[in-house]
């Protein structure tokens, strides 16, 4: 993985977030407090702003800087969670390298595990993990089977969409919607939606 790819991914993510302003805002107004889109946009724009500095770094150092920037920019729950993802991914790549799809999948899985621990949440709680855990598992599995990267990305796009849609029927037991009880049923989780958007944006670059 090259730093160039990370920079392109950051750009694609920023465009995907901004293009889905209405979708993210209406989901968060339904079961959250209406700030999710603003936070995601602020974070994505902050990464675009530091692109010149990131371009001079190795991939793991760039990911670490992205994590730190998100940590000091986003706030809310998304800030520490996304920061934990990128910082853990950076650490794994620094230790093990990124010269195979399996190693990249392993670093992605480490990032998702960091979110799981920081948020003390798991699959089925109507959060971003309902997208990230299935995608991570699928990514590791397909990489171990030496699948072609295009096929992996096509599969991950499907997995992300299924995970995102599945949050619609869940009762929230973690996150801001946890106070809603059964009233959250019928609404897609905004964090799951933004994660799905980011995964699709990155996979389409491959």
């Amino acid at each position: 993985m090259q730093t160039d790819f990370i920079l392109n991914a950051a750009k694609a993510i920023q465009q995907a977030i901004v293009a889905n302003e209405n979708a993210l805002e209406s989901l968060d107004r339904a079961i959250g407090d209406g700030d999710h889109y603003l936070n995601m946009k602020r974070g994505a724009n902050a990464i675009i702003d530091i692109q010149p500095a990131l371009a001079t770094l190795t991939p793991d150092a760039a990911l670490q800087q992205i994590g730190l920037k998100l940590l000091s920019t986003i706030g809310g729950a998304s800030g520490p969670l996304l920061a934990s993802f990128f910082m853990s991914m950076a650490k794994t790549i620094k230790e093990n390298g990124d010269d195979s799809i399996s190693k990249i999948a392993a670093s992605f899985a480490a990032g998702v595990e960091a979110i799981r621990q920081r948020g003390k949440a798991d699959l089925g709680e109507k959060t971003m993990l309902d997208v990230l855990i299935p995608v991570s598992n699928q990514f590791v599995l397909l990489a171990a089977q030496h699948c072609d990267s295009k096929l992996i990305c096509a599969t991950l796009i499907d997995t992300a969409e299924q995970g995102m849609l599945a949050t619609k029927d869940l009762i929230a037991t973690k996150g801001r919607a946890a106070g809603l009880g059964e009233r959250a049923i019928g609404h897609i989780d905004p964090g799951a939606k933004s994660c799905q958007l980011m995964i699709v944006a990155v996979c389409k670059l491959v």
Partner: protein
Amino acid sequence: MKKFITKIDDMLVDSLNGFATAHADLVNLHLDPHFITRKNKSANKVAVISGGGSGHEPLHSGYIGYGMLDAACPGHVFTSPTPDQMLAAAEAVHADKGILFIVKNYAGDVMNFEMAAEMLPFEHATVLTSDDVAVTNSTYTTGRRGVAGTMIVEKCIGSLAETGASLQACKALGDKVNSRTASMGVALTSCTVPAAGRPTFDIDDNELEMGVGIHGEPGRRREAMREADVIVKDLVAAILEDLESVHLKAFDINSGETSEALLMINGFGATPLMELYLLYNLAAKLFNQHGLQISRSLVGNYTTALDMAGASITICLLDDEIKQHWDSPVHTSALRWGR
């Protein structure tokens, strides 16, 4: 949306500058990262720091000063502040007796303060406030939310810290006050996050939101609008049910235990004081009927939700220690007595 805004992106800093200038005798404002510190802090005390999303003013910056907070970190509207703010604030106010974070129990606030605590080079402890009885505490939720009762926790901890007490003692008192405090809120309207430009939720003229959170996040039930006495009866019942389950003794008149309490009626930002006092009258009578002697009172806008109409009722069960720290002198921009 009709609000006083010069430039939407500058709104928070413009407001912070106004706050710092208006209360220049009490506070110093630091920008990038944003935090506010207390002027004339006594040396050799636990540094008490709180923070949270903006839009709840006077929480937390309004409680910086003698007998309460040493620093506060304001986040974006309804968004937790970030660890760099907390670390900078801690660096600015620490005084060799450790750092105490007071954090409202919301996922974002908890995680940001947690990451700051992990990076903190000083001895530290955290008190999580969780007074909102609207959200049931269970292993499957992140637990009860911290709402208006947070201010009572900040007042008592700040008072004890001022005496030079240890970090452990301050944390223990904070945890005790939190465990004896219960709140429940009701919204009559939604609120509008300035950058979003439209109300956070839709609510009809003939509806109310029972158990609303301080970010306008929906509560447990949407109900038809009713007379104030009926609404207060429901709020009081929810609070009593919670207190009785946790503190049975406080209500057993024959046990000889005191059942003294502090009653706070907190406005969410757009409900006039006239109505808040009307609510106080109703709530105080009901609590009295249930054996609670209301010996301390507070009525006003202490933990707001921008321009939401509505109010919350908070009860704090008093004992001699809590009473002493509630009554002790305090000098902040939003709470001042005794000096």
